[in-house]
């Protein structure tokens, strides 16, 4: 993503977080407190987690318990309305830039499925094939094909077809959706969008006019076949925090065109296997665990490539314990090990040096293998017809059941 030349220096000194680039300061870790400050969103504290548990009468999702989803905007309003009996709908999406999905990609979808089940609300999922066509210079056909392939992995996360509408921009933009896009576009000056997203004079006009496409699924009137009588319906958007700029823009525009501001619930970035400072990249298959990895692959990747906080020798390790701050297996277990008590135990023992890195890695391999297996089985049950059905513009009469 090009940046203005004169801003270059300034950017290098700070961390960069936007939809197309995420990098920490000086190759260090992302400072989430600073990010929340800079973006202006709120911390998700324990009181929220407890409230969600009360309202949904079920244990909160592991991502909530462990602070993976750690920031929000207006979540309290959504919960207040829900308590009064006013429902909401969920909106999330994926930019289909590659066929191979890794675990980091699945995180917002796993969490969104939990939200759909717990609150019993409908969900729209946007596949921004047009965005990837523009930014990654893919052909139209290729980006559409990737969108459908990714849809299969998304469906495999377990969404309920009677409450879920998946759409690709190339298929769906038009009609009421486009009307909202124009309404939004009229409210955002060129200067503003350059300021938010960092476009330059060299960027083509497709990029400059894309942001409204990702903004308008936040408005129920964009989906007349779903929400025709419910113009007042609120929207909650689970996403990774790098998507915040789109929705800052959307929230700014919404009241001006008579709509509710969408609420957000935002997640941390999923670290690469090589550590927080490493980048997960599609060109390096060893930087992440893919949903197509075999048990053997997972074992190899974790054993050979996971960055650990263990000490160099067993003696040193027993003496000083592991550095949990940088240890990737612990971080991954934080995401995926359901049992709170077991995780605490591992952290305690490993941090004290009584448990060795090998053991922690072994447990992680078990957890990841089970996860990937379950996903693969679910994926095998997804047919092209099922994708067609999820993506069909059809009413969802039971979406709040």
């Amino acid at each position, binding site marked *: 993503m090009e940046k203005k030349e004169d801003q270059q220096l300034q950017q290098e000194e700070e961390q960069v977080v936007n939809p197309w680039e995420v990098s920490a300061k000086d190759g260090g870790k992302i400072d989430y407190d600073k990010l929340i400050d800079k973006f202006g969103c709120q911390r998700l504290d324990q009181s929220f987690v407890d409230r969600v548990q009360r309202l949904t009468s079920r244990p909160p999702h592991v991502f909530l318990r462990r602070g993976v989803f750690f920031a929000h905007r207006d979540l309290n309003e959504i919960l207040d309305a829900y308590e009064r009996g006013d429902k909401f709908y969920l909106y999330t999406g994926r930019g289909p830039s590659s066929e191979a999905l890794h675990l980091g990609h699945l995180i917002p979808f796993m969490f969104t499925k939990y939200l759909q*089940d717990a609150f019993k609300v409908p969900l729209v999922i946007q596949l921004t094939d047009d965005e990837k066509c523009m930014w990654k210079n893919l052909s139209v056909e290729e980006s559409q094909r990737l969108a459908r392939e990714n849809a*299969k992995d998304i*469906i495999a996360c*377990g*969404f*309920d*077809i*009677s409450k879920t509408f998946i759409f690709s921009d190339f298929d769906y933009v038009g009609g009421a959706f486009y009307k909202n896009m124009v309404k939004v576009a009229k409210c955002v000056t060129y200067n503003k969008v350059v300021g938010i997203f960092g476009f330059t004079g060299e960027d083509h006009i497709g990029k400059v006019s894309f942001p409204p496409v990702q903004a308008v699924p936040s408005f129920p009137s964009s989906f007349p076949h779903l929400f025709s009588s419910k113009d007042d319906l609120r929207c909650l958007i689970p996403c990774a925090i790098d998507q915040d700029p789109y929705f800052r823009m959307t929230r700014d525009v919404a009241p001006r065109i008579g709509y509710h501001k969408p609420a957000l619930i935002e997640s941390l970035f999923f670290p690469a296997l090589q550590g927080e400072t490493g980048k997960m990249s599609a060109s390096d298959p060893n930087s992440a665990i893919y949903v197509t990895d075999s048990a053997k692959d997972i074992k190899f990747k974790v054993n050979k490539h996971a960055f650990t906080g263990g000490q160099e020798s067993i003696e040193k390790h027993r003496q000083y314990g592991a550095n949990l701050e940088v240890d990737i297996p612990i971080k991954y277990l934080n995401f995926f090990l359901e049992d709170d008590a077991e995780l605490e135990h591992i952290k305690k023992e490993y941090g004290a040096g009584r448990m060795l890195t090998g053991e922690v890695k072994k447990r992680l391999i078990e957890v990841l293998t089970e996860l990937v*297996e*379950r996903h*693969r*089985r*679910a*994926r*095998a*049950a*997804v*047919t*092209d*017809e*099922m994708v*067609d*059905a999820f993506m*069909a513009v*059809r009413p969802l009469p039971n979406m709040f059941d």
Partner: protein
Amino acid sequence: MGSSKDQLLVRLKELQIDFSQYEHPVVLTVEAQAKYVGNKGGALSKNLFLKDKKHRYYIVSALADTKVDLKVLSQRLGLGKGGLRMAPEQALGEILQVPLGCVTPFALVNESARHVSLLLDQGIKTQERCFFHPLSNDISISLDAHGLDKFLKSTGRDPSYVDLEANPPVGKDQPPDLAAFIPSGSTVLPDLPDEAPASQDSTGNHVSAGTKSAAVIAVKPSGNVQNVKEKPVNGARPSIPSANAGKFVEELLDKTSTLLLSEISEDSIKQHGGQLGTEVVNNIQKCLREDLKNLATIFKNTAYTEGFYAGIHYQPKRL
């Protein structure tokens, strides 16, 4: 109404397909046809109109000399040994809209033949020209494979040629090599008197062969996949997950039984005694709840998809 031979010939000319035509008295067999055009510089073709047990239709178009064994073809299509028969006469008229003795790939120009699968003998490609009937058996036209392909593409088909004489083994590890030729889409024609409406059993949903990739993954030996246990009944097509209530229940019972057995051991009996029942139930509910819900969601989504597919292929009542 089906296309007439004149309409077809006009269309061939419009597509700029090079062909020669010869009129002759009506012929019903290849031998009879040979008398009139056998020496006109083109190979003769024999064309078979076939039907399988699920009322799907096929045209096999081959050089007159190519040996076509229906038993072998049936296996290669995945229909088992005796799955293919000659189609009844009425089907010729209803589906191909041609008279007896006039089966020809050109009949695929008709809308009624939309779901008929075409198997072309690769021998046709070796000939300079090949003879076919253009919807009427008082004419024969000869054209080359390239011209035939052009015509077929204009009907929206993708022509592909097969070695019809090959006899590859078909078994557990060797899937039927012609399985892709099984037609998709509805083939029920209520007017044909000797056809019972195709009773769609749960594995018989006409889901297109485009699901091959999903099916290939399904056939890999991986854990509890719902459809790995589904051996192709009738060897119909690669197993496609269907909302089979019986199998679903079996999977649920399997999971529960496995957990139950692991929970009940000498140690656990000693530990909990009479309370073992309550203890086991609690554990089962805790461990299995999410797993079983996921299975149920997959089942629901599959059933919904079957209904959706049926809905979009629904043929409104004729008034």
